[in-house]
C-alpha cells in the first residue's frame, strides 16, 4: 500500500483542480438534482476574434480582470463542487471568449462530470485556439476512448505522445485503444512500456493479463494477473480476471477463492460508485462522505478512505468530530505523520470538548509524548472540575 502524508494529501486535495490523473471511464450512475448550468452546453460559448489568444502562454498568470473568476473556478473545483466551477467557467468564457485556460479547465470539469461529449467539445476548442498545446489534452483521448471511438483515441494519443513520449497515462490510453482495436501485439508492447515507466501501474499490469487471457495464453495471463492483484489488491477487476483464468485452467478451487474476494470487493465497489456519483452534482452531502470513508475502510482501502476523509473535512473544517474520525483513520492505517497532523489540528480546535482532550491524552500517551499527554490530561481535569 502506498503511503501518502495525510496533511500533504489534505493540502493537495484542497488545491487540486486539473492535476489529477484522468482515465477513460466506465458507465456511470450519477445522482442528485441538476443545477441549471447542466442544461447548458459548450456550443453556447461565444467565439473570439481569430488570433485573439495568439500570444497566450500556459504558464502566464490570468489577465487581472479574470483573476478573481479563475480563483473561484480553482476553489470550486478543488472542493469538488464541479457544477459551481462550471457555472463560473461559463461566466468566464462569456467575458473572455475562448480564454484557453478556461476552455481547458471546462474540458477537465466536464470529464470529471462524465459528460464526455461536452468534454471533447471543450478540449477540441482549446486545441483550435492553441494548436501547439496538444500535450495538455490527453483527456481528449480518454473522451474519444470512453465514447467508443478507438481509432480517434489512438490518433490523439499519438499526437500527445509525439510531444511527451513518456506520458504514462497517454501510453496507457494508447495501449487500451490498441487492445480494443484488436492490435494485440502493439497493445502488449505499449502497456509494457507503461510498466517500464511506472512499475507499480496496477491497471496496465492487469490489462496485460487480460490480453494474454483473451489470446488463450492462460498460464502467462495468470502470472500477469497475480502481479496486477499484488499491485492493487483492492481492485475487484484483478480478482475477477484471476477467477476467470483459474476456471479456464480447471483450477476451480482457486477460481472460487478469487471469486469470493471479487464478490466482496465488487459489492463494495458498486456502493462506492453509487455514492461517488451522488457527490458529482452536489458535493455538500456529509452523509455520503461518511459512507465513502466507511466503505473504503470496509474494503481495507485506507488510501481511498483518507481521500474521502479529506474531502469530508473540507465541508466542515472546524468540526472536531470529523477530526477525531480522521485521527482514528490515520491510526488504523498506521499513518503516523497523518495522525500527528490530525492531533495537531485537534489541539487547536478542541476548545472545551472533554471528549477531544480525553482522546488527545490517550493519543499522546500511546506516542509516549509525556508533555502533551500531561497537558491534555490537565485540560480534561479542568473541564471535569468545571462540571
Amino acid at each position, binding site marked *: 500500500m502506498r503511503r501518502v502524508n495525510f496533511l500533504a494529501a489534505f493540502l493537495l486535495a484542497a488545491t487540486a483542480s486539473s492535476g489529477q490523473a484522468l482515465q477513460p471511464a466506465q458507465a456511470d450512475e450519477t445522482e442528485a438534482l441538476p443545477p441549471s448550468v447542466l442544461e*447548458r452546453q459548450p456550443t453556447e460559448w461565444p467565439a473570439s476574434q481569430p488570433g485573439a489568444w495568439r500570444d497566450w502562454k500556459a504558464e502566464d498568470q490570468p489577465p487581472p480582470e479574470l483573476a478573481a473568476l479563475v480563483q473561484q473556478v480553482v476553489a470550486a473545483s478543488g472542493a469538488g463542487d464541479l457544477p459551481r466551477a462550471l457555472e463560473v467557467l461559463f461566466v468566464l468564457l462569456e467575458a473572455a471568449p475562448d480564454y484557453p485556460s478556461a476552455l481547458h479547465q471546462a474540458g477537465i470539469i466536464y470529464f470529471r462530470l462524465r459528460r464526455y461529449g461536452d468534454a471533447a467539445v471543450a478540449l477540441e476548442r482549446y486545441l483550435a485556439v492553441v494548436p501547439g498545446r496538444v500535450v495538455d489534452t490527453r483527456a481528449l483521448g480518454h473522451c474519444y476512448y470512453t465514447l467508443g471511438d478507438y481509432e480517434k483515441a489512438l490518433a490523439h494519443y499519438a499526437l500527445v505522445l509525439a510531444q511527451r513520449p513518456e506520458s504514462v497515462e497517454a501510453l496507457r490510453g494508447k495501449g487500451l485503444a490498441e487492445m480494443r482495436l484488436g492490435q494485440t501485439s502493439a497493445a502488449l508492447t505499449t502497456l509494457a512500456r507503461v510498466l517500464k515507466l511506472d512499475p507499480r501501474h496496477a491497471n496496465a499490469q492487469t490489462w496485460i493479463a487480460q490480453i494474454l*487471457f483473451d489470446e488463450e495464453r492462460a498460464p502467462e495471463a495468470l502470472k500477469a494477473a497475480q502481479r496486477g492483484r499484488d499491485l492493487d489488491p483492492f481492485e475487484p477487476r484483478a480478482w*475477477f480476471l484471476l477467477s476467470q483464468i483459474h476456471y479456464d485452467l480447471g483450477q476451480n478451487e482457486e477460481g472460487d477463492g478469487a471469486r469470493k474476494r471479487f464478490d466482496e470487493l465488487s459489492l463494495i465497489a458498486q456502493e462506492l460508485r453509487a455514492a461517488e456519483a451522488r457527490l458529482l452534482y452536489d458535493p455538500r452531502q456529509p452523509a455520503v462522505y461518511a459512507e465513502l470513508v466507511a466503505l473504503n475502510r470496509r474494503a481495507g482501502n485506507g488510501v481511498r478512505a483518507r481521500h474521502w476523509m479529506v474531502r469530508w473535512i473540507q465541508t466542515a473544517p472546524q468540526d472536531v468530530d470529523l477530526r477525531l474520525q480522521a485521527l482514528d483513520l490515520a491510526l488504523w492505517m498506521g499513518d503516523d505523520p497523518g495522525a500527528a497532523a490530525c492531533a495537531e489540528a485537534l489541539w487547536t480546535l478542541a476548545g472545551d470538548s472533554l471528549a477531544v482532550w480525553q482522546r488527545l491524552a490517550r493519543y499522546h500517551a500511546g506516542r509516549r509524548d509525556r508533555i502533551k499527554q500531561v497537558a491534555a490530561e490537565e485540560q480534561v481535569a479542568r473541564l471535569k472540575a468545571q462540571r
Partner: protein
Amino acid sequence: MEGDLMLGLLLSLVAGPEGGAQFVARELEVGGEIVVTRCGSPAKDFILEVNGGGLVAEDFDGDGHLDLVVVDGSDMEGARAGRAGRPTRLFLGDGAGGFAAAGKAWAMSGGRWAMAGCAGDLNGDGFPDLFLTEWGRNRLYLNDGGRGFVDASLGVLGADGELKPSGLDGERWSTSACLFDYDGDGHLDIAVVNYLGFHLDELRGPGGGCTWKGFDVMCGPEGMIPVHDQILRGAGDGTFRDVSIEIGFHPEAACFGLGVVSLDYDGDGDSDLYISNDSMPNHLWENTGDGHFKEVGMRRGVSHDANGKEQAGMGIACADVDGDGREDLFVTNFSGERNAFYRSSRATGFRERADVSRLGGVSIGRLGWGTALADFDLDGDLDLVVANGHVYPQADRAGTDTSYAQEDQFFRNDGTGRFTEEPLSGHGAGVSRALLAADWDEDGDLDLALIQLDGAVLMLENQAPHGPQNHWLEVRLKGRGGNRFGVGARVALESPGGAQFAEMRTSAGYQAGCAAWLHFGLGTLEELQALVVRWPSGRVQRIEAPALDQRLVIWEAGE
C-alpha cells in the same frame, strides 16, 4: 437539365428513400389500420412503462405461412383502476409478407399488462400454442387444431370433465420466456424470466429521488426487489408445475431478468439456459443432465463485462458465429456500456470480444434491446441486427452522450468475424424494443418485425440479393412424441467448405418468441453433402445432399 432532373426522379423511385440499406421498413398495416402498441404514458414516469410489448412468430393456423402475434401493454391509469390491458393480437400471414386480422376464434382477452410470449406445442397435438408473460398472471392459449385459441390460463378440462389447474400461479412481472424440454421427457417446459417486484402502492415516480446524469428520472431497477426466475415443468397436456427450487434453478440472489435463450452450450445433448439480467450479472444455467441446473455464468465468463462489472443485460442473440461448433452469445446493454459479445473459447468458457469484433465501441451511445444473429445477406456468414432506444426521455437533455430515439443497427460480417455497421433501413431514429427475425414473405431471406415503443409495429423486408452467390435453406422439424417441433434439436449442414449448425429454439432474446424454423445462409455453396439432425430424443438422422434454396420439412424417423 430537365433530363437530368427526370433521371434523378427515376433513380429515387427505384432506390427508394432507404438507399442501400439491408431492409425496407413499413408500418404493419392490417385491414387498413396501422398496428400500434402502447406501454404507459410518453413521459415514462414508471419503470413498468418502458419495456414495450412483445412479438411471436409461428404458423398457428397450419396453412404453412408464418403468422405474427403482437403483444400489447396497458397504461398506469388502467392498471390503477383494475382495468384489463390491451389485448394481444394474432395476425395471419399470407406467405407474401402480408397479414390479415385473425377471426374471433383467435381473439385473446387483455391481461393485466402483457409483455411478451413464445409459442410451441405444449400439449403434443401438433399445433403451436401461445404462452404470454405479464405484469400479473401469465397466460396460456392452447391451439384448437389450427381453428382458434382456447384460453387455458387457469387450466384444462380433463377427461373426467374436471378442470386441471394450469400451474401458472402467482402474479409477477415476467418479461421473456422460452420453451424447452429440460428433462428430456418429451414434453415442453417453460423458462419464465422475471424482472422485479412492482407494486402500485409503492410507486416512486418523478421526484422520487432517482436521478441519472443529474436529471430527475423514473426509479428502478436499482433499489427495487428482483424476483426469481422460474421453470415450469410441462405435463404434456398444457398444465405445469413450478419445479424451480427442487431442480436447483434458484440462484443465491434473484436478478432483474429480461432476456432468455435455450442452448446446449457444452454440447452434452441437453438444454441449458442463458438469461440476461438488468444491472446484475447474467446467468448461464447448466443442465447437469439429471434434471437439475447449476449456475455457471461467472465460471464460464458470460456474467460480466471484461472489467468484472455487471451490465444492464437486455436482449440476447445466440449462434455459432465463428464456426467452431459452439454457439456464441451477444448481449445488448445500457447506454454508456458496450454490448457484450461472448465468443466461445477453446475450453468450455467464453471470452468477451465485442471490441475486436467491432461491436463494442459503436454500441456505447446506444441502449440496445432486441437483437438477432443470422445470415441476413445470405453470403454464408452471420450478421447482426440490434434494436435501440433509451428508457429515459431525459436522454435528450444536455450532456447525456446519448438520446431517447436512436437508430437501429445492422452489422455485416466481413467473413472474418469482424463486423461493419451499415444502415439497417431508412426508417430513422426511433425508440425500439423487441425484435424478431423470420421469413414472412418466404423468399428465402430473413425479414424483421420490430416493436416501436408507443408506436407502429415495423416490418422490415430484407433486400438480400438472390442468385448463385446467395443460397439458403430453411428447416422445419416434425418430431415424434410431445416435442413436435424438435425444440432443442441441433441441425448441422455438411458441405465441402466445412460445417455449420443451428439449434432449434423458441425465444429470440428479448420479449420475442421465434418460430421453430431454422434458417441457413449458404453463400456460394453449390451443394450440400448432408444435413444431420440430432433430435432431442438423442436420435441422429442424416439426410444426404438436400437441395438448396428450399423450405425443408424433416420428420423424425422411427425406430
